[in-house]
């Protein structure tokens, strides 16, 4: 019975690539989200908290 549809087995790799691809889209996507949220929060903090990092100070 093995090999009823051999071409499906050949296409298994597309599912494997899809799984790893989705994983990296989610992980890198979340990373980008964090970087952007971090940059925004930094800017707000520097603007609103005087002396703690405003005007280019770190």
């Amino acid at each position, binding site marked *: 019975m093995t090999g009823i549809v051999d071409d499906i*087995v050949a296409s298994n790799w597309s599912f494997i690539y*899809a*799984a790893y691809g*989705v994983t990296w889209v989610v*992980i890198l996507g979340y990373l980008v989200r964090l970087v952007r949220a971090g940059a925004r929060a930094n800017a*707000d903090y520097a603007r609103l908290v005087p002396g703690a990092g405003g005007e280019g100070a770190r």
Partner: protein
Amino acid sequence: MPAPDRSLDARPARPPRTSPWMGVAAILVLAATQAYSISTSPAEGDMGHLQKIMYVHVPAAWMTFLAFFVVLVFSVKYLWKGREDDDLVAASAAEVGATLNGLTLVLGMIWGRPAWGVWWVWDARLTSTLVLFLIFAGYLALRAFVDDEQQRARWSAAVGAIGAINVPIVYMSVKWWRTLHQPPSSPATLDPAYTMGLRINAFALLFVMIFFIRKRYEIARLERAAEHAAEAAALGAP
């Protein structure tokens, strides 16, 4: 319930920052463990190379459980102590957990189509995992919806703590009920070649998850500190 800790107001020093290099390192380690396990693990007897989806699907599921366990601990801690920081840790873990939960579902569908022949079925495991996702999507929606900080923290701590109860239900669903999804594998049911790949990928994703939660928490604290400063400035202005 004790009054919320407003210590951030009294401490305008910049909240600490985790080095971004920790994230870079975690992500590189994950890439390395994936490359290692894809290239070394042999084709499985029944499903051939499809078994390799295990190295992303199973760690994603485990880390989902772990992230929601963090939500449970810090939600309970918030309800007990009322510390703002605990609310922010719970929220950060919930966001990362919900992301991993969604990833687990999508990866399961991608695996299910070639292995089982269907993208999705409403068996107890898949359904309870979707319910878990919806609960924490609701948790995040609740946080976006409620403006009052204390009210938001209290409500979301309740939702987070109760929602996390679903985690053991998801885990046990394949043992309690008859499902299409198979019961959990163990070292006894896995060839050593697969066990090793699964473990290193789980540890790598654990590091990524820890980095994500820490970073999310630090950003949340920074946002909160800025908000408090803005409030204080508005109150202090003539």
